[in-house]
């Protein structure tokens, strides 16, 4: 049922984007004088994490896009590689279409495929991403899994310029589930929060910015119980070192 919904969202999105501008009069200069299609690849996080309980994680979070001002196709990827188990603790790939809905906000719709060590999940995604007043970058998504479970994540990031090259970025992430999915360790209610503080330096333009930082992760309620049951921790401090890349 949810897979049908996913494709319906995708279709509706594509239809809006293509139907909007009626073809104005044929004018070949529109091609020669306009830059229309763009692409970009970036990784907001490409880092190594050392926890206070000697856990070591490699974390990647980034995206690649291709498209126009009106419609972008975006592939978002995120993964946590656990050194001890030699395995992906989390591994997400999202494929979404993205359209502007306001001066500062884009809507996203598509599909998310999780293939970590352990059970896989496929989700339909409906999201909102953009810039809130006072320069907070916001990204929030509603997910509905192929098991019929719904969850919402929320991310906010703020950059503080120490100088125009030294930048402190503060981030907050949270996940709330509307129903339990015990198999993948998701409890009902507030699942987890992650707070990060990273100090970066723009080494080559904005293409490469190495950083160091700290991250605090916490699990709550049923999710915390599930984590404890499987021998995991519910609260972790990490020291992180990594780089932000953008091409």
């Amino acid at each position, binding site marked *: 049922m949810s897979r049908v919904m996913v494709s319906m969202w995708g279709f509706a999105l594509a239809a809006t984007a293509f139907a909007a501008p009626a073809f104005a009069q044929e004018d070949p200069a*529109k091609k*020669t004088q*306009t830059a229309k299609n763009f692409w970009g690849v970036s990784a907001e996080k490409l880092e190594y994490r050392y926890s206070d309980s000697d856990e070591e994680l490699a974390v990647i979070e980034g995206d690649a896009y291709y498209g126009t001002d009106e419609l972008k196709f975006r592939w978002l990827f995120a993964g946590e590689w656990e050194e001890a188990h030699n395995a992906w603790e989390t591994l997400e790939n999202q494929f979404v279409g993205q359209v502007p809905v306001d001066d500062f906000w884009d809507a996203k719709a598509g599909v998310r495929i999780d293939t970590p060590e352990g059970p896989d999940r496929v989700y339909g995604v409906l999201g909102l991403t953009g810039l809130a*007043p006072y*320069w907070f970058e916001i990204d929030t998504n509603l997910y509905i899994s192929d098991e019929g479970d719904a969850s919402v994540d929320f991310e906010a990031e703020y950059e503080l310029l120490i100088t125009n090259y030294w930048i402190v970025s503060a981030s907050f992430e949270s996940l709330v589930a509307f129903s339990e999915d015990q198999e993948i360790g998701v409890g009902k209610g507030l699942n987890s929060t992650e707070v990060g503080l990273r100090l970066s330096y723009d080494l080559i333009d904005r293409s490469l910015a190495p950083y160091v930082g700290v991250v605090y992760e916490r699990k709550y309620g049923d999710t915390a119980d599930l984590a404890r049951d499987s021998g995991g921790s519910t609260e972790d401090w990490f020291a992180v070192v990594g780089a932000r890349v953008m091409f």
Partner: protein
Amino acid sequence: MNKRLITGAFALLMPVMAWAGEYDLTVDRVTIDTGDFKKQGIGYNGASPGPVLKFKEGEDVVINVTNNLDEMTSIHWHGLILPFEQDGVPGISFPGIAPGETFTYRFPIVQAGTYWFHSHSGFQEPNGAYGAIVIEPEGREPFRYDRDYVVQLTDKHPHSGDRIMRNLKMSADYYNRQQQTVGDFFDESGEKGFVATLRDRMMWGDMRMMKADIEDVQGFTGLINGKGPEQNWTGLFKPGERVRLRFINSSAMTYFDIRIPGLKMTVVQADGNNVRPVSVDEFRIGVAETYDVIVHIRDEEAYTIFAESMGRSGYARGTLAPSEGMVAAVPELRDAPMLTMADMAGHMDHGDMDHGSMNHGAMNDDTMDHSAMNQESMNQGDMDHSAHGGGMPEDPFYASGSGLLPTASNGGKFLSYADLRAQSPLFEEREPTREIEMRLTGNMERYEWSINGIKYEDADPIVLQYGERVRFKFVNETMMTHPMHLHGMWSILDVGAGKWNPIKHVISVAPATTVYMETEVDAPGEWAFHCHLSYHAASGMFRKIVVEGGPDSSVAEGEQSGKQGGES
């Protein structure tokens, strides 16, 4: 080939007759060395900038352009009045010049002055495809000089045009390294108080706009005639001479504030047309504009030509010297200006922010209206003296309280559009037949630029009738400055001087201002009209203009321009 030989021989034999000057240009891959970095780019006849093309008013020119690139190219003759098929805009004037092809441009030279040429394909112009045009007048000029130099400026960037466009789309502030920092916050708190500074940041943060958003693309090296500040382009003179400097701003994105410490400059020409001489200490040159100035140099000394970018993120430097190797001191860059709420006024449609200078009603009144501009404290009745009026300087071409309002570094006279008067009007003064409003619009965060909220790709052409006199009303609703360029027909800038209004080809419109220009629609065909900031034009701040009617254009133009297709 044969034809060229014959033409050449003919020219040799009959030097006095009106003759067809024949010119050859090749479009080549070149290496550009700015002194700061070396970069592959595009040039003409093996160099960037290309050669200075010297034409004579009244001659018919034949220009053979050979494309040695592996992509399409084109040359637009910026500011020249010519048949539209010769204007060089791919998709509007002609299909463009294919790789390996030689395209022959043919047109009569019907004007004199300083102009330039550049590619109108992709980002070839920012990548180096530009050169200068100097047209010698038929008659005597109303000023005299002993020698002249082209001073062609550009903002050469280590990134290619495509890469810059892509980066701006990914992150509009990609190149902005003048953003306000924590340190600035505390410095300002010390001066103005913590609460006031916080409120200021909150106000801008609420709009998601940056005060430091003056130059979209920083990190360039300013070049004069292809030479970086260290390479120091030098023009020689003999003491006592009057030297005419033909300033051309061929930048992709950068406005320059130009001065020559120790010398007064007499502005005699703007955009190729003579103006009544104005003596200034400094002037701002918009992208794609030209200004000719004359300096009278008495002493046997070197002088620095110093061109600071409007946002003070870079500069170009050259030298005027009595002998090679002599140099003068190079000034420091002044502090970067910051936009104010006044510059933002056009942007806000809901504005009821409690800021003194943000009288929305006054902002919407056009700045050319004398009563509107004078109601703001100043008592100058005449625009000529606007910059001398003591107290806070005012310029009707900037929003009242604008952070961009320039001042001369020596406290002297800074040129304003309001100072410009045509030396000899080209057209009869008459009432415009209609007015066309063009709101200059955009979304800085997304790096989208448009006219009346519509990007070129979604817009219908603007249709004008031959014989009309159209009054264009530019309302800048963005916080960027846009140099608007109409191809093929003159732009008569309304400075409130009636028949003496100056005649230009680029009209710079500062944030939150309204500027009028009038155009005598005297050129049939299809023309381009756009913001001359390369990445604004390519983002959609562009229109096609169609001029309907007029003398049977296909016959009349065809006769003058020869074959229209790609002649190879």
